[in-house]
Structure formats: structure tokens, C-alpha cells
């Protein structure tokens, strides 16, 4: 059990680092550059909040993102034509519309189109047997090509891992759905053992104005949320660990310091004077006592219901 306790404590400490290095959780992270997802073992955590377009020096994405920018005048014309002719069925954002037209951004016809050779015949002749029936449109060739160019332009703005365009700039949603009074009752019953609205949480909602960041912050015990929306987690490596370790070898005086790292074979700590000391571990020797101030918090979260979480967030949001 001791072992379990130690590991969980350290796991929490390293969580921030994990967060910082994680690059998406489908399959495993892109291995595009040395900085990206080169870690061992399974990847975990959250998809990165970064933009979908591959930046300079990184690996280009798919043909839709590699495409040379089209003529802005043609694209503008295509956008207008699309709005008039196509938007009602396929949606203003191309993701499908009320009248049953399919999502064009994941359409094989469009993904495999270069310069309208797939798209133009469908506009001109209509289409049956797909999701529904599309009528034929009698448009000049150049109009159809302009529509195709516009569609390609929108696809080029798609995010990574299949995310639709604009998915990183979505309007913020109100997450404050909880009952602040119920949240206050929960707070007084559970949280007030260590925290107080007049004490260490005074003005927390002013310091962390974004409700989601506030929720991430308090539920994670400070590991998440400081970076604001989508931040996912502060980089813990610059800060000294909050975890305190006391190492007691047989016949020696206990040595206490902040945890630097631990595995089954060594434990390394930084003592008060800034020096780093490393001890070999062999089973229960030396005795290693770990005090992670976040551990009680982490245990609490295991019992936390989503409703209580929303209520407490609503309450904390009143602590301006």
C-alpha cells in the first residue's frame, strides 16, 4: 500500500508534465518533430488546443491543407454562389444542412477533387442514390468552378484530426449551470476543511475570470486551469515540487526535501539548502515517506459527482 501511495503522489506531480507533452489522443501523437510526442508508452491527456494548420517547420498535413491559396476574387465569387445555390441543403458551413444535404467537408467526391472535375458534374447533373436526391443546376462552367474553388478553400481551413474549420474559435459556451447555493453547502461541508472564501479563495473568481479555467483549477487542485481556457495544465517543471519526501535509512537521521524524481530504484530530493540528494532504493529500504498536499484532494475528486462539481463552480464564480 505504501508503494501505491507514493506512486500516486508522484503521478500527480508529473501530471503537469504529461499534459504539456501530450499531442492528441487518437492513436498516438504525430511524430513530426523532435519536440512532438517522442515519449515512450501510451499517450494520454487532451487534444492540444493549437490551430489545425501546420506551422512553419512542421510536417504538412493532407492535400487539402497543402493546396496553394486560390484566387481571392474567384473564392469570393464562389462563396456568394454557394450561399445562394448550395447553402440551404449543405449548410452555410458546408457541414450539412436542414434540408438533408450531406456534409461536404468529409465527402469523398470533394476530398478527391482537384479542380472541379468531380464537383462540376455533380452540380451540373445532380445526384441520386447518395444521402438524398440533388437536383441539377444550370450554371455557367466558371460559376461551378468558382464554387469548387470556394469549397476547397474552406476545406483548407479544417483543423487537424478531422476537426471542422473554425473549431478552435468556437463561441464560448456558458458552463455555469450549477446551483450556487447548493455549491456553497457542498463547499462548507467538504472544502471548508482546508479552504475558505474569505481566506485562500478570496477573490478567486476575479483572479480566474473564465469559468471553465476556474473549474479546471479547483477540481485539479491547481494542476489545470491556470493557463486559461484550453490551457490544460501549467508546466510544472519550472516550479519546485510541492511533494515533500522524507528518506530514512536504517541507523541514519531522516533527510527531508522536495521530490525531484522517484522510481523503483532511486529517489531524488532537493533539500532546503538547494542541494540534491539521491538514494538507492531496495524494496522497503530506505524508508520513503511522501507527503503530497494534493493527495486528499485527488481522493476527493474520485467521489465528486458532476452535479456537485457544477454547483461548486457556480458558487466559486461568485467570489469576485
Amino acid at each position, binding site marked *: 500500500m505504501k*508503494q501505491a501511495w507514493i*506512486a500516486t503522489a*508522484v503521478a*500527480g506531480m*508529473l*501530471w503537469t508534465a*504529461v499534459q504539456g507533452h501530450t499531442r492528441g*489522443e487518437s*492513436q498516438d501523437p*504525430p*511524430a513530426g518533430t*523532435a519536440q512532438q*510526442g517522442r*515519449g*515512450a*508508452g*501510451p*499517450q494520454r*491527456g487532451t*487534444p492540444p488546443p493549437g490551430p489545425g494548420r501546420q506551422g512553419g*517547420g512542421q*510536417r504538412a*498535413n*493532407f492535400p487539402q491543407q*497543402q493546396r496553394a491559396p486560390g484566387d481571392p476574387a474567384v473564392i469570393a465569387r464562389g462563396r456568394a454562389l454557394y450561399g445562394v445555390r448550395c447553402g440551404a441543403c449543405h*449548410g452555410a458551413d458546408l*457541414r450539412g444542412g436542414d434540408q438533408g444535404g450531406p*456534409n461536404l467537408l*468529409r465527402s469523398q467526391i470533394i*476530398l*478527391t477533387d482537384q479542380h472541379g472535375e468531380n464537383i462540376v458534374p455533380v452540380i451540373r447533373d445532380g445526384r441520386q442514390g447518395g444521402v438524398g436526391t440533388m437536383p441539377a443546376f444550370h450554371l455557367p462552367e466558371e460559376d461551378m468552378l468558382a464554387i469548387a474553388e470556394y469549397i476547397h478553400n474552406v476545406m483548407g481551413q479544417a*483543423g487537424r*484530426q*478531422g*476537426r*471542422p474549420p473554425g*473549431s478552435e474559435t*468556437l463561441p464560448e*459556451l*456558458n*458552463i*455555469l*449551470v450549477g446551483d450556487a447555493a447548493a455549491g456553497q453547502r457542498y463547499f462548507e461541508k467538504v472544502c471548508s476543511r482546508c479552504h475558505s472564501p474569505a481566506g485562500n479563495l478570496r477573490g478567486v473568481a476575479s483572479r480566474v475570470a473564465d469559468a*471553465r479555467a476556474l*473549474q*479546471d483549477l479547483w477540481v*485539479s487542485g491547481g*494542476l*489545470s486551469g491556470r493557463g486559461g481556457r484550453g490551457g*490544460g*495544465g501549467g508546466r510544472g517543471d519550472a516550479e519546485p515540487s510541492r511533494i515533500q519526501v522524507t528518506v530514512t535509512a536504517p541507523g541514519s537521521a531522516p533527510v527531508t526535501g522536495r521530490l525531484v*524524481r*522517484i*522510481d*523503483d*530504484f532511486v529517489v531524488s530530493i532537493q533539500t532546503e539548502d538547494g542541494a540534491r540528494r539521491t538514494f538507492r532504493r531496495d524494496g522497503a529500504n530506505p524508508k520513503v515517506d511522501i507527503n503530497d498536499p494534493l493527495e486528499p484532494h485527488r481522493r476527493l475528486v474520485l467521489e*465528486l459527482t*458532476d452535479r456537485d*462539481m*457544477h454547483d461548486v463552480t457556480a458558487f466559486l464564480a461568485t467570489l469576485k
Partner: protein
Amino acid sequence: MKTIKLLLPICLVMPALLLAQGRGVDTAAQLRPPTDSWPTYSGDLTGRRYSPLKNIDKTNIKQLSLAWVSRGFTDGSGPTGRGAAAAGPGGGGGRGGAPQFPLVISGLGTGEFNTGGPAAIRGSILMVDGVLYPTSPDNVWAVDARDGSILWQYYWKTRGGTHTGHRGVGMWKNFLFTEFHDNYLVKLDARTGKEQWRVEISRFDEQYFSSMAPIIIDDHVIVGTGNDLDMPGFLQSYDAETGKRQWILYTVPMNPGDPGLETWPSLDAARHGGAQPWVPGVFDPETRYYIFGTGNPTPAYTPAGRGEGAGLFTCSLVAVNVDTGKMAWYYQTSPRDMHDWDSAQTPILVDAVINGRPRKLVSTAARNGYFFTVDRITGEHIATSKFGTVANWAKGLDDKGRPILNPEKVATIPGAIVPGSATNWPPPAYSPDTGLFYVPENNQLSIAYLIDPDPRGSMGLGGRQASGIGNYGNFVTAIDPKTGRIAWRHQLPGGGGPTGMLTTAGGLLFAGDGAGNLVAFDAANGTPLWNARLGNVTNAPQTYMLDGKQHVLVAAGDQLYAFRLN
């Protein structure tokens, strides 16, 4: 005695002869547990990653020491493979000067998207006839297993696309088969790296990406691929000789009347339903079934377009006849997944006696935190258990042992506390000696937010963001596949997750501990017995006999380490 005297010189000469001939790999060699080679992704076709070698065992493991280290594997970059500038270090060989080995250049790109730098060796490394074949995205090497020196490098100029980890090569006779992320299957001469043929196995413009280590059974080269943009999954078989496609098995319904269509709201939804098989599977020679796992349904987090149905054959174990490409059975391990939890992990063939009856089984530990055993001939359910300690997303099990999704434990606008992946593609192992299935286990919680409540649903992995709120421990976990009962768990104190696993007849279990160590555990109880701190273990360890000594091989990013009893 006389016979022995006669045989002895022959025994001594034989290995040299065989080496000179370069036997390569045939299917028979992959049906036995590996000894003097590692001829396929999992060591053999059972998926067990179990070696019958026992020169290294619990009594002498403390003496395991370095045979050699090979540093500085460098991904090719630019048109020449050696960076934008034609000369200078950093490309191709990158050993502080001009590489001393042949560099074979291929691929349809210009090299502009190959950013070079240190290799990321994360897949299996085949070892055949004294040669190792490590890979990194867009790169394959041949390496002398006796000293770690590079014999040749093959460099693929990519067209781009999502570059995940590369899982390794497959081998047949003296040829290597490998996928590249822009969806080519390439056949190479294992002796020179010279390209024999290449074939496009999925469409780059439909945003597929390919990284699976091909599995070769007789002349069938089995390949899977990946996709995040709501495209249909499929498994294919190519003729090892000619590169012609033999069959394709879609893992979602593609036509009216296809089985499983009733679990989707429409054919269009099914055809955008995902279920990518991107991790190698296993092979049962008696039934001729290749058994593999499929990925998550798409869109991953926003099910509006995929209705209330189970979405077959996403997140399933699937058995396909390797000669015909016809599906024999399936078992869905995560019906209507809402968390992007592929069930694509390599399963393992297990033979066990249950209720006095010998059974042929297949087991898998899924990303959703549940472990499953089914009959590998029929797909009949045998056992389910929950191994992820914080897997709070299911309401219970149905009558076939499948977890039932709790619709409240999915991304919501105000946030829901949900677990992360309990495991992933780094492979598990199984020892017939201990009867235990070993799996890397990770327990984390996040708050999952729905950020795109559009009633049409999002696309791909869109529509959700998650904030990590705590790590609840990383473990090496041993499960009894007959019952799903957890035999033991060893918690890794360093806070990182374990790599894939290797187990041996020496009673050992090898894995990276997520804290920089290669560790040998007692396979019976998880006690750590030996370690070497390499910095960053990046693949599942492997073992083989070479020159009369058992070696343990592991990758650490751009480095290879070989250990033996010196």
C-alpha cells in the same frame, strides 16, 4: 555417444551455413515462439510476446549487462535525405560526418516535409539472420545485431499527412514490407534496402494515414490503415510476390444489406463511421482466422450523426479468414463508444482449460479500461473484467459481457469527469508458464467539455476539449485471462506509463517503466528485479538468441540497446 560426436561438428557449422544462406522468414517460423529470431511484430503470430528462452532468468538477471549501444539514428530530411544543405551532419546518418552506409531514397514527396532529426523508434524491431530492422516514421534501417552498426537506411520522402508512431516492418523470405504514413506499402530487399515495388493502400486525399507493421501469413501481406476524418475503415491483403490486392474487408457497412447496417441510422453514417484497424493482429492457423481490433466510431465525441446504435463493427474484435477476406465473427468491446477509445490493440491467443474443457481463446485489454476473453473459433463471450481503476463511464455489462455506455459520462457543456485511455497500442504480453496476461495500465481523470453542441454533430475528433485533473496511477498489471481477475498490479512510482511488454520462460517480464528505466520484473508477482536507466524507453523490449547468448533489445528514441549476460 557416437551420434552425438557426429552431430556436434554439424551443430557448430550449421548456424554459420544458415546465416550465409540468409533464410529469411516463412510462416512456419512465425508459428513457433521465437528463439534465434524475432521474425514478426509480436515475435510470433499469437501476439504473446513470449520467448521460450531462459538463459536469462530470475537467478542471474542481476548480471544482465550491456552488449552494445547504438546511438544517433537520424531521420532523413530534404531531397537528398541529408538535410536542405547537401552536406553536413544532421541528415541521413548523422554520426558526425558523412554516413558510412548506403542511403536508399524513395517516396513521392520532395523531402520538404521530412523534418529529419533524431529517430523515434517506437515499433517492433525484427531480428532475422543476425540483422535488426528498426524504423521511425519515413525511415527503415538494417542494423548489425552483433555490434549495432548500420548496414543501410531507407528514406521515404513523404507527401505529408498525420505522422503517428511507426509500428515496424513485416518480413517474408528475404523481403521487408513496410507502410509509410502517406499510405504506401513498400517491399524492400532485406539485404540492401532496394525497393522491389510499392502500392498505394489507402487514399491520401481522403486523409488516411498508415503506420501498421504488416503481418505476413503465407503470401498474404495484411495491412491496416488509419483515419481521423470520418472515413470507413478497412483491412486488406496484398500478394507478397506481386503487390496485387487479394481482398479488402471493410469494418463498417458500405452497401445496402451489409451486416451491421441496422446499428447505424443511415448508410451514409455507416460509411463515415471509422473503425480503423491500425495495429497488428494475430493468426490462428487451425481456423485460418486473422484476429484484429478495430478503432473508434467517428465522429468520435459527437454522436448526433451516428444515432443510438452500437455502430458495428467499430471498437470490436474481428476474425477474418485470411484466404478469403470474409468475416467469421466479431465481438464488440465498446458499443457506441463516445470517448475515442479504439479497441485496435493487439489481441493475444490463449489456450486454457475452463470448466474442465480445453478452450481456444483470444483476449484483449481495451482502451476503455475493460478486459475481454472470447472463444477464438466462435467469438463466444467468456469473460469481462474492469481493469482501469477510474473507468467510471459504463453503467454495467450486458448479457454478453459488453460494457453499457453511461450517457451522462460523456463530454457535456458544463463538463463531465471521465477517465483517459486505460491502455493503448503499446502491446501486452502473455506467458503460458504463469498463465497471465500483462498489460500497461494508466489511470487518469479529465473534465470533458462539449465545445460544439451543433445538432449535426462535429467531425473527426472535433467538438470536445478536455482538461486533465489528476493521475491515479500507472501500473504493470497481470490478468488471468480465463476469468479476467487481476492477479497482481505493480504500481510504477515515477508517474509515467509503462511501455509494451515482453515475457520469457526465464520467469521474467520486461518493460520500460515510464521513468526512464528498462525493468525486468518477476513475471509471477511483479517484483522489480533489475533495471537499466536509459533515459526514455520507447518500444516494447524483445529477446533472441545470438551466438549462443540470449540478448534483450530495446529502443530509447534514437538509440538501440542490446543486453546479455557477459
